[in-house]
C-alpha cells in the first residue's frame, strides 16, 4: 500500500502542475497594462491631528503657495536619506548695452530681428526651461523668452521659469560658464567675475563691447515665501519613507501615487520645486516605451557587435 501511496504522492505534483497550466497568469504586462493595486490617494499628513492619511508613498507633490521655506523637511531628511535640499529660484539674464546691441545687429542680424519682434509683441506663454540652450550661449531665436529694455540696456531672458539651485554660483558655473568658455575662441575675453550666494555675474568683453550674464534671485510672488526657498528632492537617494511629509507643519508636501521615476542619468532624478509642484497627470507620462522600427530594433540587438 505504501508503494501506491508513494506513487500517488509522486504523481500529485504532475497533476497540480497541469492544473495550473489552465489558470490565468498573475503577470501584469506593465507598462502595457495598468497596475490595478495602486491606491489613488497619495500619503498625506494632518499636522493638527498628528496622524497621516493612508495612501501611496510615491513622488512628492509640493504646494508652493503653502511652503514657507522653513526647511523642516530638509532637517528630517538629513537624518534619513539626505535627499531633500532647500533651493532658491534663480533667473539667468544676459545684459546687452546699446553698443553691443548694434554689434549684434551687424553680425547676427537674424537674432536681433527676432529679438525686436519679440520685444515688439511680447506675450509668449512660459514654457519649460531647456538648460542645454543656456550652456551653448549662442541663442537661437526660439530660446529667447523675454526681452526688457531697462535704463538703455537690453535684458534678455532665456528662461521664464526659475532655475532652482542652492547658490547662484552653482547656476553660473553649471549652466552658464561652459558656454561662456567656448566663446573665448571667437575672441571674447572673460572680464570681471562676481560669485556669491545671492547673485552671480560674469562679464564678457570684445574690443569695446561688453556683455554681462547675470544670475539673480527672483521673487516668485508667494507672499509667505518671498525668498523663493523651496525643497528639491533627489530621487536617487529618497527612500520614500514620507517623514518629510510628517515634518511639514503647513501641509505643503504630499505624496502621490506616481512611481515611474526612472531616468537616464542621475541628474535627471533631481526634481526641482517647479517639477514637484506639478501633479502627476500634468507630467503626462504614459510609461509605454516607444515603438521601435526594424532598423532601431536591429541596432539594439546588434549594438555589441557594432561597438
Amino acid at each position: 500500500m505504501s508503494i501506491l501511496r508513494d506513487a500517488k504522492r509522486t504523481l500529485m505534483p504532475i497533476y497540480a502542475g497541469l492544473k495550473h497550466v489552465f489558470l490565468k497568469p498573475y503577470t501584469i504586462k506593465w507598462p502595457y497594462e495598468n497596475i490595478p493595486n495602486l491606491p489613488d490617494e497619495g500619503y498625506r499628513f494632518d499636522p493638527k491631528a498628528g496622524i497621516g492619511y493612508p495612501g501611496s508613498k510615491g513622488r512628492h507633490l509640493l504646494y508652493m503657495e503653502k511652503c514657507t521655506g522653513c526647511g523642516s523637511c530638509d532637517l528630517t531628511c538629513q537624518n534619513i536619506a539626505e535627499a531633500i535640499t532647500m533651493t532658491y529660484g534663480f533667473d539667468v539674464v544676459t545684459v546687452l548695452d546699446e553698443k553691443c546691441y548694434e554689434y549684434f545687429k551687424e553680425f547676427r542680424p537674424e537674432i536681433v530681428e527676432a529679438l525686436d519682434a519679440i520685444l515688439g509683441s511680447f506675450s509668449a506663454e512660459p514654457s519649460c526651461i531647456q538648460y542645454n540652450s543656456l550652456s551653448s550661449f549662442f541663442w537661437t531665436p526660439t530660446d529667447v523668452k523675454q526681452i526688457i529694455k531697462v535704463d538703455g540696456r537690453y535684458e534678455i531672458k532665456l528662461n521664464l521659469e526659475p532655475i532652482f539651485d542652492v547658490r547662484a554660483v552653482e547656476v553660473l558655473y553649471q549652466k552658464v560658464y561652459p558656454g561662456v568658455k567656448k566663446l573665448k575662441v571667437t575672441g571674447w575675453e572673460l572680464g570681471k567675475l562676481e560669485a556669491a550666494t545671492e547673485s552671480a555675474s560674469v562679464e564678457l568683453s570684445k574690443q569695446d563691447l561688453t556683455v554681462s550674464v547675470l544670475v539673480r534671485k527672483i521673487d516668485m510672488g508667494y507672499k509667505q515665501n518671498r525668498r523663493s526657498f523651496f525643497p528639491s528632492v533627489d530621487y536617487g537617494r529618497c527612500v520614500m519613507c514620507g517623514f518629510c511629509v510628517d515634518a511639514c507643519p503647513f501641509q505643503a508636501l504630499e505624496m502621490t501615487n506616481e512611481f515611474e521615476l526612472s531616468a537616464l542619468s542621475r541628474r535627471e532624478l533631481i526634481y526641482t520645486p517647479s517639477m514637484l509642484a506639478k501633479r502627476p497627470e500634468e507630467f503626462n507620462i504614459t510609461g509605454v516605451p516607444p515603438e521601435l522600427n526594424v532598423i532601431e530594433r536591429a541596432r539594439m540587438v546588434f549594438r555589441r557587435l557594432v561597438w
Partner: protein
Amino acid sequence: MSSLILQEYARAAANFLNELPHPLKDFILFLHSDTFIKAIIFPGLLFILTFVMFTIWFERKLLARVMVRLGPLHVGKYAGLLQLVADAVKLLSKELIVPEKAIKPLYVSMPILCGALSMLIFAFLPLGPGWVIYPSDISLLLVFVILAVTPITILVAGWASRSKYSFIGMVRLAFQVFSYEVPFFLAIASITLAARSFNLEKIVEAQAELPFIIPALLGFIVFLITAIAEVERVPFDLPTAEQELVSGWQTEYTGAYFALFYLAAYIKLDAMAILTALLFLGGWHGPSIPGIPESILGPFWLILKSLIVIFLVLLLRGVFPRITLDKLLDIGWRVLIPLALLNILIVAVLIQIGLI
C-alpha cells in the same frame, strides 16, 4: 511553349555540367542528390534546428504556464516565438572567455565536438519510411555509440576548465552517465530482441500491429528515466545543479561555447524523444488519413508522438525537485538494472510463447 524553354535550359545545363571537371561535377550532382536534400532539409540540419527552436520555445511557454506566468512575449510576432533567435544573437555576440588555467585546445574544441556529435545522431534516425539520411543495418547501435560518446566530450570539457565547480560537476556527470548507460542499453536490448534487428526502420516495421510499449512496459519506464538522466534534465540535472555548483561543468563556458552546449543538450533531448517514439510508441505507424501520402503522414505521426514525450519530460522540470547523487546511484544500480533485466526476461518469454 514554356516547357520547351525549360527543356532548352535543362539541356544547356546538362551540357555545362558535362564540360565541368570531374570532382566539381560530382559535387554539383551531389547537391542535387537525395542524400544531400535529406541532410540539409528534412531529417537533417534545418529540421533539427526548427525542432530544437520549437522545443525550447515550448519549454519556456509550458514552464511559464505551470508557474502561472506568461513566458516570452515580445520577440517575434506571436508569443515570443523568436526569443531563441534573440538569445542566440546575444550569446554569439558575447566575449569568449578562456580561463587562464584551462587546457586551451581541449577547452575550445569540446563544445564544437559535443554539438557536432549530438547532431550526428539524426543521421541514423529514420523519421518516416525511407526518411533517413544514412540507412544502416546497425543504426540503433550507431545511435547508442554516439550517445555514449557525447558525455565524454562533456567530461573533458569539465576537466579542461580547471575550475573546482566544473570539476565536481564533471565527476557527478561521470557517475551519472556510467551508472545509467547500463540500464539504458538493457532497455534497448529487449527491443532488439523483440524486433530481431538493430535496424531502426525494421524495429518500427516490427511494431506495425503492436507498439513495443505494451509487451515492454517496464523497459519503457526504465528507458524514459535513463533517457532523462542521459540528457541531464530535472530531476536528474545534478551535473549542472545551479544552487549547488553554480553551473556545474559548464560554469566557465561563455558566449558561443555555451550556446553550443545548450544547443547540444536540446538536440539530444529531441533525439531521445524521437528514439522513444521509434522504439516503444510504434514509430510512424498511425491511423491513415485518406488523401495524404504515407511518406508525409509517417513523419507527422512520429513527430507527434515524440512531442508527447517531450511534453512529459518538460513538465517534469516544472514539478519535481532535483534528487541527490546517492539517490541517483541507488535508483540506477538497485532499481533500474533489475527492472531492465526483468523486462528482458518478460520479452524473452513472450517471444518464446510466440506472442511477438
